[in-house]
């Protein structure tokens, strides 16, 4: 294994080349080629990410930040290299502002708990949108239940966009925090997050951005966005499960008390006194997910090795093509029709439940999601208990859209 970090050259986007990097895409289900259209739930992994995990355990595994021995130093170096890769990926000013967490859910819970503990009290207000995933709702509900905080909701328009007038009107002098998705996992809507952050700052509130979906498709620059916090998970970004990232502005993070207590997050522990370590380690108690952190670095390397503009254009073509084919089917209603959306299509079929549709489509080898997508407020908003959802990744192909449309058409006939 080489000790140097090789920055791979950016490749021009070619879907066949990308597909060849993902071993699982060549498998079959029910004797048919797998058509994986559940990428918003979790993406498949390229060979380089899989290799990063096995190579860590094969060659350079030891606990990090602790040992004075060779292997521990090497593992620590790789772990911190991964942090630097993530920093560069989101253009955070310093590595200290990149915290490895157990996932995006863990990251948001960290902020709600640690920031909320000292800064959000009875009657203080938190603004959320109706588009949020439960991971960006439930941690704030804790503050409502435990501290008497008030949740205010930004409504969703009929096309799946947020109501920006209502957003501005939701602020009061008591608004402490705004927690918003950058791209809805349920509908695909992309929110005007930069403008919404600017407005929140004007009103004196901090902003947490849920970038789980957007980070996969769109360039993220936390300095340009000027967000106070940004969270995303590894597994949607072609990386491993069990690892996520929380970016926070250094001064805000330093003002927060630790989230979990344990090893590696302290400076000095005495019988009656404790001094905490500086960020990011203050928020990384216990042995971290070492191989997963190294592999999220590999995932970032992978994504940045590909022409991201080309990948995004490709995904948008799939989105447009699938949307057009689906609108030719009379029984299908697409929920979330704004042109400002990423490659996610949520839909319902007249006369059949999303569960029925997905069960039948599954038999064609097509994997899609049915359910409330852990986003019940937005399901309620559109008056449906659940939807079916197709979500594209850069490795999906146009002929997979055709396979899906064929499967959808026969599923519709099945329930006529």
């Amino acid at each position, binding site marked *: 294994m080489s000790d140097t970090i090789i920055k791979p050259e950016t490749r021009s986007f070619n879907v066949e080349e990308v597909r060849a990097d993902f071993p699982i895409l060549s498998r079959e289900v029910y004797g048919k080629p797998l058509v994986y259209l559940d990428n918003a739930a979790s993406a498949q992994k390229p060979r380089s990410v899989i290799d990063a995990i096995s190579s860590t355990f094969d060659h350079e595994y030891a606990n990090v930040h602790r040992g004075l021995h060779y292997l521990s130093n090497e593992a620590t170096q790789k772990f911190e290299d991964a942090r630097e890769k993530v920093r560069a990926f989101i253009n955070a000013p310093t590595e200290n502002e990149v915290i490895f967490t157990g996932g995006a859910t863990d990251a948001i819970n960290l902020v709600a708990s640690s920031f909320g503990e000292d800064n959000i009290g009875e009657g203080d207000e938190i603004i959320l949108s109706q588009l949020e995933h439960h991971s960006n709702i439930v941690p704030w509900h804790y503050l409502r239940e435990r501290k008497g905080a008030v949740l205010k909701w930004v409504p969703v328009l009929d096309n799946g966009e947020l109501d920006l007038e209502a957003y501005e009107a939701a602020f009061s002098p008591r608004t402490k925090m705004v927690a918003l998705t950058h791209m809805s996992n349920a509908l695909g809507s992309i929110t005007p997050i930069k403008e919404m952050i600017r407005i929140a700052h004007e009103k004196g509130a901090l902003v947490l951005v849920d970038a789980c979906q957007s980070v996969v498709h769109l360039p993220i620059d936390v300095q340009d966005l000027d967000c106070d916090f940004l969270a995303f998970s590894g597994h949607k970004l072609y990386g491993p499960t069990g690892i996520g990232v929380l970016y926070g502005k250094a001064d805000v993070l330093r003002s927060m008390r630790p989230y979990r207590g344990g090893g590696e997050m302290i400076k000095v522990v005495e019988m009656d006194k404790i001094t905490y370590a500086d960020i990011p380690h203050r928020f990384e108690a216990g042995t971290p997910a070492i191989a997963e952190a190294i592999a999220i670095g590999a995932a970032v390397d992978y994504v940045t090795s590909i022409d991201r503009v080309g990948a995004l254009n490709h995904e948008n073509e799939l989105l447009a093509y699938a949307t057009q084919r689906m609108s030719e089917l009379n029984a299908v209603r697409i929920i979330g029709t704004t042109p400002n959306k990423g490659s996610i299509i949520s839909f319902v079929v007249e006369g059949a439940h999303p569960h029925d549709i997905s069960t039948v489509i599954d038999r064609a080898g097509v994997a899609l999601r049915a359910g409330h997508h852990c986003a019940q407020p937005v399901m309620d908003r559109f008056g449906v*208990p659940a939807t079916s959802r197709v979500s594209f990744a850069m490795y999906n192909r146009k002929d997979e859209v055709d396979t899906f449309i064929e499967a959808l058409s026969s599923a519709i006939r099945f329930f006529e």
Partner: protein
Amino acid sequence: MSIQELIEDFSFLDDWEDRYRYVIELGKKLDPLTDDERTDETKVLGCTSQVWLVTALDKSDSETSLTFRGDSDAHIVRGLIAILLVLYSGKSVSEILAIEPREIFAQFGLNEHLSPQRSNGLFSMVGRIRADAAAAAAQV
């Protein structure tokens, strides 16, 4: 309809399409629950489709038996519930607890529907049926 009849019917159905069509037919024949019966109490936790189960006890015999009625907003799930009702409804507590639904569903080629997949209310429904039976036994 008996379990034996179901097993026979399924034995004639070769491919998944025919099996699902049959399951959907079974669901269509199921008496729907009224709006009053579809309550938070009768609702069985399921992520994708909504599932309800209404349990009634019959203590007239020496051993308590349980009668079940169920419903779902999804066609396939309604049909699968119909099968569960054939297996369980009207049986005594000890009969209910002795049933191995996975084996029977496997015979029908429907075993994937009784996996611990969270999105499938059916797995939870079997749990509810067994818990109701155990609770009925404890009452006596």
